[in-house]
């Protein structure tokens, strides 16, 4: 089967070459026959590539370990879903995916344009085919997914998929991201086609519009799912780390977003033509750059990929594209002259230019920060930078340090420097959507803008007060300052984040206000006479869909920024060592660590160390105890809490307490951890074997925890009463009882249940009471650490509780101390607006692309009368 795959790839190469030649020659000679052959070829190539994909899926699903790719990324126990997603789990499969998606998109293009037998369109299809050809060459010669083992027949079982990738989010992130990159080939092809064959009657901007929006939506989706995966799966509580691999994918997104706006201006007014050509070509090149950066060893990254053989190929490809772009751009420079000058900076086109410049600035910043470690390796570059920084310091009267080694910047620098520029863009998007061509906003529109900013200011003050309030009050109480002084101190500590967050709230609310206000004004204008507001709104959506969808997308942007701002006010605990029933305070929550168990997950084929943590409101704790629960304790006198999660059970007699305690232990923690395999009456000895043996086989250190727990409870009955001993190979434990009384009580307690408990303290306080955490009142959180048999390192699964305002984020990891775990927790504000905003961006981006897909919106040029 692998050989069939190889054959098909070779065939694909031939077919794609033929298609490219047909399309280009058809364009040059204007022969419809050749042009049509090119379109047909494109479709054939797509089908061929789909078949190749099926071959790869086949070898994956049938566990064909003679294939090196299959052996590297799957194993026999891997669940089917992840076997399928292993398709793009490695470089070779990702490359095949690239080829399949690009030729698929090309086929769709050819299908929809099949009646358009013009040289222009033929150039476009030809460029797409050439793009496919490049990657097919890589696939056949340098990165073949159908490579088989030659010196031996392949291993008996594969390596398995990296556990971090065994997550539904990580299953869809690569395809979305890859399609996002791939799809930008189409607008690029349209530009090249136009530059080579400028057709006065056609505008590439109009024709490429839908493809561009589709590409943007997919790229945005890829980034957002990546953020979501990082947040939910990686266990650090953040979603963007400014890692070089992340930044690489951000670069085309920055220019791509600028491109969406500038294309819209050209469509309506014929302006910004040079910007559009520049941005479309640059975005495409950046998608290749992203792939290159990810696979090369250029920058030290957390996502360490090994040196790829493909690096030089991508480098030459990029240089070729840059040269091609420069030559064509300069050749057609005059033809790209704009219809008129930009009159006013606050007109629609003026604001879009400002936006584009801001995005270019962000591009430079991110590029600089990402490549700085490489730049500053060179002594000459450092010398130049030292000179520049020194000169700057002299001007400002500061002191300059001489830099003697390569420098690397971290997330704080990126946030600090990119932040203000992004915030300026946010501010522009509160004005831009209602700006008109040629003039600054006037009259009612200007009023909407001012009012929205005003409301934004009020909201920002309120939100800041709410965020700082609790901490200010606490600080004031401790230090004795006035609340106002304390609040100012907190604000200052959080700078520049607090300033950014404040401005973000002003601008975000303004954006939402302007979007809604403009909409309201337009609907009201239409809703006169007998027309209701509702039908006016529907009519407006039908008449001007892009405007409506554009407003919604900007609202999504505003929500995303609110999400960014929220991070300033988060509460965090890192690596706090806790033992059972210890609690820590996080903001207004108290977290109580309860217990840890080890379980074996059959379907996922991993062992999980699962910790149980209870979150209660500080000062409130557990208030209500179910009556049936209280009634279930024989001889109970009282059950009282202290405002926390711990309840003290006081019994009428010491004997009643002892009985209850023993029963709770034998049927609770003991039964969870051990099975009673043998009882020796003569020696008063009980032999225990651990439960979940399969999990312990993978995480043998966990046995230490069970032994420590056993010992703690055994000791709680008094010195020498019960002796606990453990053996390591095989795992087992024995309890030896010092007296008949306790031994009989133990035996009687088996299968005599007490009301359910989440945890209890291994101490019999004052002989007549003990402390418990009841079950069934509040559900605990259960973060895990997962151990996969074939993987080299464990992965942590956080417990996440998403709320409208705050997210509670918990992770717990076993430590070298048998009974302690390391607890990390966060209260993350405003995460839900972040995800909702992201969803709106992607969803409405796709909708915007789908609008007018039948008519291609040809009627749009100059429709609003740009003069």
């Amino acid at each position: 089967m692998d050989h069939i795959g190889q054959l098909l790839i070779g065939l694909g190469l031939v077919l794609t070459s033929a298609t490219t030649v047909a399309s280009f020659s058809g364009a040059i000679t204007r022969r419809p026959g050749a042009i049509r052959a090119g379109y047909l070829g494109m479709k054939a190539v797509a089908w061929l590539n789909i078949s190749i994909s099926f071959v790869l899926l086949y070898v994956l699903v049938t566990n064909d370990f003679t294939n090196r790719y299959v052996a590297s990324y799957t194993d026999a126990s891997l669940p089917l879903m992840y076997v399928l997603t292993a398709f793009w789990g490695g470089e070779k499969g990702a490359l095949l995916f690239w080829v399949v998606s690009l030729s698929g998109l090309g086929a769709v293009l050819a299908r929809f344009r099949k009646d358009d037998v013009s040289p222009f369109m033929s150039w476009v299809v030809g460029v797409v085919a050439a793009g496919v050809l490049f990657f097919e060459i890589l696939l056949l010669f340098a990165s073949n997914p159908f490579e088989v083992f030659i010196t031996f027949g392949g291993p008996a079982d594969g390596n398995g998929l990296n556990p971090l990738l065994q997550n539904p989010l990580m299953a869809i992130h690569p395809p979305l991201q890859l399609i996002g990159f791939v799809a930008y080939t189409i607008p690029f092809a349209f530009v090249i086609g136009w530059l080579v064959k400028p057709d006065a009657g056609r505008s590439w901007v109009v024709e490429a519009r839908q493809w561009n929006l589709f590409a943007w939506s997919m790229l945005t989706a890829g980034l957002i799912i990546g953020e979501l995966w990082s947040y939910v799966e990686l266990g650090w509580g953040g979603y963007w780390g400014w890692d070089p691999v992340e930044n690489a994918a951000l670069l085309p997104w920055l220019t791509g977003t600028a491109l969406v706006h500038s294309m819209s201006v050209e469509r309506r007014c014929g302006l910004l033509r040079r910007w559009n050509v520049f941005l479309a070509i640059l975005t495409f090149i950046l998608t290749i750059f992203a792939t290159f950066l990810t696979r090369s060893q250029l920058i030290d990254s957390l996502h360490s990929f090994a040196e790829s053989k493909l690096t030089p190929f991508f480098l030459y490809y990029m240089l070729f594209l840059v040269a091609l772009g420069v030559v064509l751009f300069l050749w057609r420079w005059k033809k790209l002259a704009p219809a008129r000058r930009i009159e006013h900076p606050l007109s629609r086109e003026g604001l879009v230019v400002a936006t584009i410049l801001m995005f270019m600035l962000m591009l430079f910043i991110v590029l600089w920060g990402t490549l700085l470690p490489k730049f500053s390796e060179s002594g000459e570059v450092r010398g130049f930078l030292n000179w520049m920084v020194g000169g700057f310091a002299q001007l400002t009267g500061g002191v300059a340090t001489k830099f003697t080694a390569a420098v690397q910047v971290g997330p704080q620098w990126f946030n600090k420097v990119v932040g203000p520029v992004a915030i300026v863009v946010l501010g522009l998007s509160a004005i831009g959507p209602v700006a008109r061509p040629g003039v600054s906003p006037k009259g009612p529109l200007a009023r909407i803008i001012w009012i929205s900013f005003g409301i934004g200011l009020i909201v920002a003050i309120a939100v800041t007060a709410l965020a700082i309030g609790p901490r200010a009050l606490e600080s004031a109480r401790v230090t004795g300052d006035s609340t106002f002084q304390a609040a100012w101190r907190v604000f200052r500590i959080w700078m520049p984040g607090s300033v950014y967050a404040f401005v973000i709230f002003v601008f975000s609310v303004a954006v939402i206000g302007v979007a809604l206000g403009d909409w309201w004004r337009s609907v009201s204008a239409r809703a006169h006479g007998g027309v209701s507001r509702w039908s006016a709104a529907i009519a407006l959506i039908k008449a001007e869909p892009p405007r409506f969808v554009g407003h919604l997308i900007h609202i999504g942007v505003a929500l995303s920024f609110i999400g960014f701002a929220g991070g300033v006010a988060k509460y965090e605990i890192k690596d706090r060592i806790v033992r059972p029933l210890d609690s820590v305070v996080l903001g207004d929550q108290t977290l109580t660590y309860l217990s840890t168990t080890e379980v074996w997950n059959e379907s996922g084929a991993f062992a999980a160390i699962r910790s149980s943590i209870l979150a209660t409101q500080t000062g409130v704790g557990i208030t209500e105890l179910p009556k049936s629960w209280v009634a279930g304790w024989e001889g109970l006198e009282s059950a009282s809490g202290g405002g926390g999660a711990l309840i003290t059970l006081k019994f009428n007699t010491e004997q009643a307490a002892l009985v209850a305690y023993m029963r709770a232990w034998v049927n609770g923690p003991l039964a969870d951890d051990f099975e009673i395999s043998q009882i020796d009456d003569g020696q008063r000895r009980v032999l225990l074997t651990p439960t979940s043996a399969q999990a312990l086989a993978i995480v043998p250190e966990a046995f230490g925890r069970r032994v420590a727990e056993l010992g703690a409870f055994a000791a709680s009955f008094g010195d020498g009463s019960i002796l606990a001993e453990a053996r390591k190979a095989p795992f087992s434990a024995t309890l030896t009882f010092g007296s008949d009384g306790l031994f009989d009580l133990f035996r009687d307690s088996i299968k005599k249940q007490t009301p359910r408990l989440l945890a209890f303290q291994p101490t019999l306080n004052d002989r007549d009471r003990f402390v418990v955490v009841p079950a069934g009142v509040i559900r605990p959180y259960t973060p895990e650490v997962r151990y996969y048999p074939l993987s080299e390192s464990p992965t942590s699964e956080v417990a996440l509780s998403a709320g409208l305002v705050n997210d509670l984020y918990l992770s717990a990891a076993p430590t070298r101390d048998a009974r302690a775990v390391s607890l990390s927790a966060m209260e993350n504000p405003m995460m839900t607006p972040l995800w909702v905003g992201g969803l709106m961006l992607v969803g409405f981006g796709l909708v915007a692309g789908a609008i007018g897909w039948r008519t291609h919106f040809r009627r749009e040029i100059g429709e609003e009368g740009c003069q």
Partner: protein
Amino acid sequence: MRRFVPLIVGTLVIAGGAVIVGTSMSGGVYSLTVAEALAQAQDLQGRQFKVSGDVVDGSVVETGDFSITFTIRDESNEILSCRYKGVLPDPFEEGRQVILQGTFDAEHVLEVSQITVKCPSKYEEEGYSEEEYLQYYGDKYKNGHPGANGDDAAK
């Protein structure tokens, strides 16, 4: 007024560029090889820097309450002694590649404030030759796939 636009834009570009470059250099953390770090140890006193290398087998010593000492070695083949107090990231193990951030103390031992362990990426196997593959994965892959061309895989 329009004549001044290029001048204004130009000034903003240069000023902006200077701010970006300047803040990156001063806010940045040195990224050094072990050899460079040791050579510049005097100058680096008190300054945070980043260094990466492999944790040397057998070098990890537990010195008490969640504290360890260990050494790393990188391509410059020099050894750096390190000290860390805190909870270790899950993947930390001898032989793994780590990125350390910290400062030198008086004895030129790195007091580590941050450890990141590099994901042992699965992309790596693709670059192995078949001998390396067998060597890396050892015994469990010595059994040939049924239907292989009779060659004994145990090398």
